């Protein structure tokens, strides 16, 4: 491990009075034992670990990145504003150099929340990392950001939001989508036409243990980060790869999580999922905090940790090695692939269905992106949900080029309401959010 201490900010918000429902995994009790362990270890007494109270995110922060239907307040609770606000507080403390890095240990989570929000999916309503990242760019100017999503479930919401953004590298490692919610995150999901290669998915077989995660980190993630040269690295720190998690089938340990954070050295970590609230979370969180703070974490082990009993099979190791090599090749070849994809095209379309499992809503989306060499490209989305809502959105990307912006303004102006209840215009560079 690294031997130098760092100043680490901790934003702890366990929302002890908020639950999706009384017996839901996302309930009051979720971070109770984590709190107990963090308090009992006395981590907040250490000179280099500083706790901060979360601020509240605002509607403007949400509207910078989401299109909430019909509006932000209809799809969130106060708790969402605090968890997004907690992520923003973590970012503020890092950007202001009050601390070297920060961990937003907050709930509810956000990485399944997509750009358009009709309700909650995968326990998430709004994407707290995405809100945080756009807050950073809005407040501190342009930044190249890498998100490494280590939640066991594919971070499909973050992928959707940054799909067309070449300035945000999104890497998700997760349990193979054929065996787990949300059923996506295959290696051929590789980014939109203007950002091809800037979404990277690494599906791992069930049973992957520390070895497999760390192999992927060392041989794929870290080399790609070296080439991308981000200004900020964000760990979307889900903890459900743990061997004791009730919702998943992986074999990651507290030691593994600590090692991963030590080597990845994220500027900001934000809690996502993780529902082994008693056997895993107390140890995983203490491990991550110590690793971020540069303190010896080698004694942080679960009481029932027996590495030999959860070690991945040789076949799993071979599979991961082959996959890592193949994905690295994909990354290396991203430029020619893009050239072939966009050749002679002005617009590209995709049609898809999105299911909101938490709120039982189905959505159909038609998304169109303008092929652009100057920016992420103008996006329009027509969306219809089983709630009866039909909307149209025009989205000028961050660092949008004049041509995309002009085109977007034209489309917003000329599109008649027709069968849509609402038409939205989002231009985050100018902090413009219009609804008609």
């Amino acid at each position, binding site marked *: 491990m690294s031997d130098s201490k760092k100043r680490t900010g901790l934003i*702890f*918000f*366990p*929302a*002890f*009075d*908020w639950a999706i429902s*009384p*017996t*839901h995994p996302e*309930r*009051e*009790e979720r971070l*109770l*034992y984590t*709190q*107990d*362990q963090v*308090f*009992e*270890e*006395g981590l907040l*007494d250490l000179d280099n670990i500083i*706790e*901060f*109270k*979360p601020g*509240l995110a605002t509607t403007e922060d949400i509207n910078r990145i989401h299109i909430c239907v019909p509006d932000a307040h209809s799809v969130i*609770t*106060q*708790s969402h504003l*605090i968890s997004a606000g907690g992520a923003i507080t973590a970012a503020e403390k890092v950007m202001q150099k009050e601390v070297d890095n920060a961990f937003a240990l907050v709930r509810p989570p956000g990485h399944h929340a997509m750009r358009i929000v009709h309700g909650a999916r995968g326990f998430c309503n709004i994407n707290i990392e995405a809100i945080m990242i756009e807050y950073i760019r809005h407040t501190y100017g342009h930044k190249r950001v890498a998100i490494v999503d280590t939640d066991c479930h594919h971070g499909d919401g973050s992928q959707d939001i940054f799909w067309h953004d070449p300035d945000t590298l999104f890497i998700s490692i997760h349990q193979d989508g054929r065996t787990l919610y949300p059923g996506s995150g295959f290696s051929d999901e590789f980014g939109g036409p203007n950002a091809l290669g800037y979404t990277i998915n690494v599906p791992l077989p069930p049973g992957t243990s520390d070895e497999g995660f760390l192999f992927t980190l060392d041989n794929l993630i870290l080399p790609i980060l070296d080439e991308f040269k981000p200004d900020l690295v964000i760990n979307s720190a889900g903890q459900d790869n743990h061997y004791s998690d*009730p919702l998943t089938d992986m074999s990651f340990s507290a030691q593994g999580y600590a090692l991963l954070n030590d080597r990845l050295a994220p500027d900001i970590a934000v809690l996502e999922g993780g529902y082994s609230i*008693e056997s895993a979370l*107390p*140890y995983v969180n*203490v491990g991550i905090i*110590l690793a971020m703070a540069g*303190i*010896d974490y*080698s*004694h*942080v*082990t*679960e*009481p029932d940790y027996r590495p030999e009993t959860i070690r991945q099979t040789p076949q799993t190791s071979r599979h991961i090695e082959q996959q890592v090599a193949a994905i690295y090749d994909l990354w290396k070849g991203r430029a020619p692939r893009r050239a072939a994809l966009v050749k002679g095209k002005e617009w590209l379309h995709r049609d898809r269905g999105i299911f909101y499992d938490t709120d039982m809503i189905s959505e159909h989306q038609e998304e169109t992106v303008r092929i652009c060499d100057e920016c992420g490209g103008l996006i329009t989305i027509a969306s219809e949900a089983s709630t009866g809502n039909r909307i149209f959105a025009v989205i000028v990307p961050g660092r949008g080029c004049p041509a995309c912006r002009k085109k977007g303004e034209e489309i917003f102006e000329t599109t008649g309401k027709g069968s849509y209840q609402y038409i939205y215009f989002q231009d985050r560079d100018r902090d413009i959010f219009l609804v008609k």
Partner: protein
Amino acid sequence: MIIGIDVGGTHTDAVLLEALQIKKKAKVLTNQENLIESLTAVTKEIFSGEDPGDIERIVLSTTISTNAIVQGKTDRVGMILASGPGLPPEMLRIGKDTHFISGYVNHRGIRVAGTDSGEVAGIADLFERENIGHVGIVGKFSTRNPGLETEIGDIIGGRFRHRSFGHLMSGNLNFPRRIATTYLNAAIWDTYSTFVKNVMDYVGHMRITAPVYILKADGGTSKISQSVGYPVGSILSGPAASIMGILSLTDGREDAIALDIGGTTTDISIFADGVPLLEPLGVTIGGHKTLIRGLLTRSIGVGGDSRVGYEDGEFTIGPERNGPAAAFGGPSPTPTDAMIVLGLTDIGDGGKALKAIQEMASLANRSPDETAQEIFDLTCRKILSAAGEMLGEINDKPVYTVHEILEGKKVTPTVVYIVGGPAGPMAPYIEKMGGYPSCVPEHAEVANAIGAALARTTTEVTLLADTEKGEVTIAEEGIQASISRGFSHQDAMDLCEETLRKRALRMGAREDDLDMEIIEDQTFNMVRGMGSMAGKNIRIKAQVKPGLIAGFKQEASDVRQ
């Protein structure tokens, strides 16, 4: 009649209250080498001509424990730690006689690994060979399951002079602090027991039968006989006495700042609705963060005798004191000299004060009056800004529920109480600069002794009921009992209050003074497997809050008038 005695660093003060009026005050120099001598001297003075039978109670605030710790006059302590997974042992070690054992308890109080009696006995043998007489036994999460610590205690048996157990120190979670607290408790146990014995011998010799109380760091009292097992409770009683003194000399029910402006330092404390705030986890002493319940104070190096300097075009105040003010023959100018030059006070030698300020003025190329004014302003400003920072920290303290975040309860002082030498001259300025009305209580010179005399008995208990496990614990009382699955929040509340009541009465509280308050109250549904309700996790903390003994509030304000 009540006697209040405050053994301070320099003076030992005593007051005799009769029908709640100050009947007598006395002051002697403290003999740090022999505190009992100072006690007897001051008591003799105040007691002469009085009938011992008229004494209702005696309350002592003493530096005995604080001095033992700060001056390192402590006994060697053998520590046995059951640390389990977490921070590396190297970060937990306290002194060279720390030993780690393999048994441990997890966050729910479940014993994950049992004690190895051979291992424990081996460590005890080693302590014995090394002539260690005091042992501290501390387990991680022992407040959740005191059983492991008591079992270790049973294994090592009664062959040591003293054993301190971690779970009895506090119900709060924080293993490193529990270790430090237990260590200090064992380390000063002999010193403190001897002191108590000497006090009791003296009291017996004086034929006083009234109960003797000791003032604790949290501004509450405990019968001295009950305090022997928990000597660390009596540390830092000086600042606590001062705060309780301010409370007794004012009759505030509001949010307030209290400033005790001394020669070297200013001690700042905060009241919320007239009740002094406590440290969230415990006080810090001699570099040790502990779980010892104590009043929240911040001490800054700005006082009447602080050295005034001039560096890079700006005046500096403190943090050191080079001696008394120049007006009293000291080597450098001080805020006190500035106040003399400004005519705010007429103590000391005005000529010497002016000379010192003039030297400073020529350095700064200003007139002596301007210089004195700037020094004085800066002194007031520094004190106010430290108080403001302290308030900021209190109001920014993280909270963990949506409700509390949205409610955003804040301490907003409406008055500042000022005691100490420069209180009179500084009050109008602090009032103007800070925007708070100020109040300088009378009799402030014996505020500490009055505070001790009138402080009520305080204590707290921490209950955790886990109906899935079928167990309730109240660590401070060593309670660990079986409960039924139907154990309710109301049952927990009743048990907690009853336990608190008994504990407070045992420590010497009167029925009238049991001002109990629930300070934490949380109930969690415990869900296991695929969404089945497995039980409840109920957490309640209750306290008798710091305050004055019943019936004295009104009369205390009469004293002020």
